[in-house]
């Protein structure tokens, strides 16, 4: 029983990631509808969307190569791999040690790389535009992300995710401006990486503003389902990564099966709050011009750097 426990919990986490991600997106959409005075389709609509796409036939562009057909699987695989590494329900998952936070960022980078390639594969103007913009956003987000990671690892003396979560959980409660700055930077980066307003709008198909949607415009059927699903998981994972790094209280520690229900409830509550935050931000802000993203991510970099500086200067 004790042997099987880590495997069980790992399996449980993968299922939670797979099934929780559409639910979270559904929750966000529902809240948004409420806030904007529209009628919502309920939190389960994303499940229906995915299952509909999965049974639909595929229409492929004439010159789509194997890259185009392989990309959805690579994107989905890399994202799910990331999902099995982040401590979402338990800090001591067997797989958390396989990759630290830098490798985790690289896993998301694989997904992005293949999506961008798929965007270039058909040879339409939209696809190339999306790839170019996506890689621009990513290249600006990366230094900020590293700086934010640097700041958190200064506090925890580690880049291993479970160690980082442990340090914050068990450390004495102390006001740390560095962590606050890192958190703010992380929020900005997460918004940019998951393609939410004000950087990208996941609901738009207007050519001037599309980033992510432009790359995946030519997808259909199960390919589209996988890409959409991976996108939802990405939102879910960035939210839970933020939770694990900055608000880990409630995540189960070690081999205590009793902690799991508590951890689950805490997770649902925290993610619901994150969803609310996203909706508030998205309702309040308008999408920014594409070249304002430089300043947006520049501010993220600034905040993360201030976090690093204030660790040395003030703590």
């Amino acid at each position, binding site marked *: 029983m004790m042997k099987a426990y880590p495997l069980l919990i790992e399996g449980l986490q993968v299922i939670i990631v797979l099934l929780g991600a559409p639910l979270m997106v559904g929750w966000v959409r529902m809240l948004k509808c409420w806030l904007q005075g529209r009628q919502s389709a309920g939190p389960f609509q994303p499940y229906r969307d995915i299952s509909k796409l999965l049974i639909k036939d595929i229409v492929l562009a004439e010159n789509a190569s194997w890259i185009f057909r392989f990309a959805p699987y690579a994107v989905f695989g890399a994202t799910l791999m990331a999902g099995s590494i982040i401590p979402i329900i338990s800090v001591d998952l067997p797989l958390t040690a396989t990759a630290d936070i830098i490798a985790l960022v690289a896993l998301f980078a694989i997904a992005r790389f293949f999506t961008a390639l798929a965007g270039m594969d058909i040879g339409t103007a939209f696809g190339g535009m999306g790839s170019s913009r996506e890689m621009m956003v990513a290249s600006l987000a990366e230094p900020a992300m590293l700086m934010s990671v640097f700041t958190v690892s200064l506090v925890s003396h580690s880049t291993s995710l479970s160690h980082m979560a442990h340090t914050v959980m068990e450390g004495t409660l102390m006001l740390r*401006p560095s962590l606050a700055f890192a958190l703010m930077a992380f929020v900005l980066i997460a918004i940019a990486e998951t393609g939410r307003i004000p950087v990208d709008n996941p609901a738009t198909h207007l050519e001037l503003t599309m980033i992510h949607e432009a790359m995946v415009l030519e997808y259909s059927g199960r390919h589209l389902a996988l890409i959409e699903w991976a996108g939802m998981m990405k939102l879910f994972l960035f939210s839970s990564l933020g939770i694990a790094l900055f608000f880990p209280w409630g995540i189960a520690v070690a081999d205590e099966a009793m902690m799991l229900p508590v951890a689950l409830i805490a997770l649902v509550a925290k993610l619901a709050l994150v969803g609310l935050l996203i909706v508030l931000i998205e309702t309040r802000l308008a999408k920014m011009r594409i070249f304002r993203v430089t*300043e947006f991510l520049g501010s993220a970099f*600034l905040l993360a750097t*201030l976090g690093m*500086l*204030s660790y040395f200067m*003030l703590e």
Partner: protein
Amino acid sequence: MNVNIAAQINSVLAALILLTAFGLLVQRRIYGLLHIFAWQGLFLSISTAIVGYTAGLHHLYISAILTLTLKVFALPYILYVLIHRLKIHKEVEDMVNIPTTMLIGIALVIFSYHLTAPIRELSTLVTRSTLAVALATVMLGLLMMITRKKAVTQIIGFLALENGLFFAATSATYGMPLVVELGVALDILIAAFIFGIFFFQIRTTFDSLDLKEMEKLKEED
């Protein structure tokens, strides 16, 4: 409230002051600048009060209240009225683009940390670590005055610079004597008024508040 927690809160406030100093550099809207400036004043006044409490220096409370009334309410209000009356363009115009200004700002923070290192080793006050932040705030205020075009942004930069000086005084030596502080506060107020009168003058002369117009004042060769 023990000293340790007070020092921690003070560090957080110092961090927030630094953040607002950068916020002033990054902000594009003039009303936004005023809000950020008011917040900076608020953090400064809280920090002064906390230093006063932990050090048992009661005259710092008076400075805190002065800061609160002047820098959080009075000055932003005066500037708001000025901007409103003069119908100034609502966007900040910069000479150096914002990301570059940010990078220069970060370099300045590191530089001031380097500069204050010897003082940090000598000082024994709980607030000594915030000195670098204070110096950085001064430099960032100056940077803002250098890199912005319009007169209004210059005065906000100047006021931010003064905030930094004030913060340096509280963090390095637990504040200046009360008389000096009162005098400085009065100076600031008067300066704001003089700036206001100048704005009107500049505008009536040049029909603009762009400081580039002042270049015309030199003699023709």
